[in-house]
């Protein structure tokens, strides 16, 4: 029985993007032999230690665990360590009551909940949460939802927001300093957060009982951060993306440095070694190696920063700057219907979300109406900066190539290609939308060294890896069909 659930659980992890290998699955079963299965926390720790090997997957693991082992939890009357566990009795016994409770019941329930929070009575709180969900979540069987709606309904009915103020008043605040106030508040906020989680978990348990584990887990699955669509990311996701960009860039930089080293290793400098050996009587004690000749490209980054493209531009810029040690130089340019160099605004420690706001007001990126004009912007780039491009320059243009039906000016890109090492185009729109409506993607992309769909961090990372370390030889030749990004035109 446990093994069946475990198999389903592991499948769910895989579907949620957590790569669990065969060996790890076996390790988990082996480790469970040494685990007290009656102890839910221990059981969870064992599975986590054997099945998850990456911090980024912990959240997905947590969700799947709650769903798959929903009923695997100690009963509330087990003592909870802090003695006072039976202080607050549930207002009524276990019951299949559904729908909404009356006002009197609500007051009573709230009062009990308030007391439980005040005295940090976890067991009591759990019992009350079950009752609250019975009475106020209004769960309708069979609906394919993840439970957020029920959670908010319950929270609102309980007036959880008001609880914090009540708790603060209840703790004697006489003569408390501002600092103490803050600490007390943080403490209660933590308890209330715990209450929220308890309610959420309880609702999930009901949903699982109603619709089964697979169905609930599927509704709760979230895309991994690397797969979040950059153009349409929710605000909360943006903040999280912000946090992974630098580590991601660091990892990539380490990988690249390593590959570079491999490329140049093993080249013994025979003459210098022999010359050195004179001091040891001709014995070559101290082999000398040739100094490395790093081939680091110089980057010219041109970003459309008009409304819908701004977020994508921001992440591309941020990522490239985080990677700047991998390039000999990064210069950046922003455009809407005019183009301006923005290199002076940016650097390694820049606060990117705010920098872009500044740029759009301070740099000369708008000419007439602030609607993207690729033809004009590219022409400006060519006129003002084209002379500075050399065989070591890699030009990267980012944008959806939606030109508002203006003049395409398709001769610029071939000229750029002519004088530089390579020209790439990154388009954050799905490839299927290219060339529809006012998109003139092919008119440019056809001439580029490569044109790629880059909608998420994973694709961005794959692209950067490839250009930072081009195959040995003069001109970068992107590998077709690899590693993921879309269409590629051979020149």
């Amino acid at each position, binding site marked *: 029985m446990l093994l069946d659930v475990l198999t389903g659980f592991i499948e769910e992890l895989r579907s949620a993007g957590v790569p669990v290998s065969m060996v790890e699955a076996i390790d988990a079963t082996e*480790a469970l032999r040494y685990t007290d299965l009656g102890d839910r926390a221990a059981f969870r720790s064992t599975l986590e*230690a054997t099945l998850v090997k990456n911090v980024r997957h912990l959240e997905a693991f947590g969700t799947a665990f709650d769903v798959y082992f929903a009923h695997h939890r100690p009963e509330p009357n087990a003592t909870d360590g802090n003695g006072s566990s039976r202080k607050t009795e549930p207002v009524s016994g276990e019951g299949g009551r559904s729908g909404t409770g009356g006002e009197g019941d609500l007051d009573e329930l709230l009062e009990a909940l308030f007391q439980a929070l005040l005295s940090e009575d976890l067991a009591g709180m759990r019992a009350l949460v079950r009752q609250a969900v019975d009475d106020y979540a209004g769960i309708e069987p069979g609906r394919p939802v993840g439970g957020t709606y029920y959670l908010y309904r319950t929270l609102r009915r309980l007036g959880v927001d008001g609880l914090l103020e009540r708790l603060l008043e209840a703790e004697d605040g006489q003569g408390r300093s501002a600092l103490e106030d803050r600490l007390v508040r943080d403490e209660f906020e933590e308890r209330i957060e715990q209450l929220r989680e308890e309610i959420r978990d309880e609702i999930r348990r009901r949903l699982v009982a109603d619709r089964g584990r697979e169905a609930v887990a599927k509704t709760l699955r979230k895309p991994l951060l690397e797969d979040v669509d950059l153009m349409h990311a929710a605000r909360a996701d943006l903040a999280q993306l912000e946090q992974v960009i630098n580590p991601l860039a660091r*990892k990539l930089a380490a990988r690249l440095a390593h590959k570079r080293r491999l490329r140049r290793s093993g080249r013994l400098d025979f003459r210098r070694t022999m010359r050195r050996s004179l001091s040891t009587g001709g014995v070559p004690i101290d082999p000398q190696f040739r100094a490395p000749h790093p081939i680091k490209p110089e980057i010219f980054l041109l970003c459309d920063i008009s409304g819908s493209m701004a977020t994508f531009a921001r992440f591309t810029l941020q990522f490239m700057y985080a990677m700047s040690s991998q390039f000999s130089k990064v210069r950046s340019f922003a455009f809407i219907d005019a183009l301006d160099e923005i290199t002076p605004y940016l650097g390694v420690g820049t606060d990117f979300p705010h920098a872009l706001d500044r740029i759009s007001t301070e740099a000369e990126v708008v000419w007439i109406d602030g609607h993207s004009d690729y033809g004009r912007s590219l022409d400006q780039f060519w006129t003002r900066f084209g002379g500075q491009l050399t065989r070591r320059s890699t030009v990267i243009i980012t944008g959806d190539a939606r030109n508002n039906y203006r003049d395409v000016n398709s001769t610029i890109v071939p000229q750029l290609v002519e004088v530089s090492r390579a020209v790439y185009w990154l388009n954050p729109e799905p490839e299927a939308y290219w060339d529809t409506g006012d998109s003139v993607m092919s008119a440019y992309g056809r001439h580029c060294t490569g044109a790629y769909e880059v909608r998420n961090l994973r694709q961005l990372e794959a692209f950067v890896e490839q250009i930072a370390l081009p195959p040995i030889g003069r001109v970068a030749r992107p590998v077709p069909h690899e590693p993921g990004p879309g269409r590629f035109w051979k020149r």
Partner: protein
Amino acid sequence: MISFAEPGEVKTALEEAKYLADDRIAQVVFLAERLGKPVLIEGPAGVGKTELAKALAVVHQRRLIRLQCYEGLDESKALYEWNYKKQLLRIQADQGSDWSQLEEDIFSEDYLLTRPLLEAIATEEPVVLLIDEIDRVEVETEALLLEVLSEFQVSIPELGTVQATSQPLVLLTSNNTRELSEALKRRCLFLHIGYPTVDREKQILLARVEGVTEHLAEQVARIVRSVRSFDLKKAPSVSESIDWARTLITLGVAEVEAADVTDTLHVLLKYQTDIERVAKELEI
């Protein structure tokens, strides 16, 4: 060596060694010992990753062998190296003698420099092996470590294979600056250590800071929790809250007031912008 019957015993033993583990840490350590698997520990700086290995060495009364990783660490620093200067001197001293005899001599254990990894498996007594900050080494070195950890033997072409005489308890730490290889991760149990709860941090302070009162430890732990909740460049680690508590004691503070925080915030935080931020948030 002590063999634990259940994770609770691990926790208690660690506590006696002044390491405050939570149930999860105890569970993973317990499993590692039962299954004979290495533990890969990840987490922010200063949350007790390295310290766990040290405490386990104390608990088992084993020697701790530490391999501190860095970029460029290779076989000769991790495993073994021939002492070629010594070899050379010997060659020069023995000019004219029989080469094959000489060769046998200079490739014997006398001329071998043992490095931590070889040492960890070649000792009589089992040890605790800590491979610290493994994310700093190159991928091939990682592969080399992996090989030793899975075979528990090291082959030295000139000498033959050194078989482990004892199996070390292995802990690896990573600050997650790069993705480790799948092969390595598959072999290990994974343990993520985050910031402790207020209660555990309080216990840590009580165990580690001489002269701290319950009250002060609690206050420090609570303030640090609040500070960590702000969006900072560098959140304070456990070692920083320990330093802070020590500073407060040195200054004779028994009850932390706003002014004390203002005066000593630089102990807790590294960046000026963070200090300003916290001062503003805490209204001090």
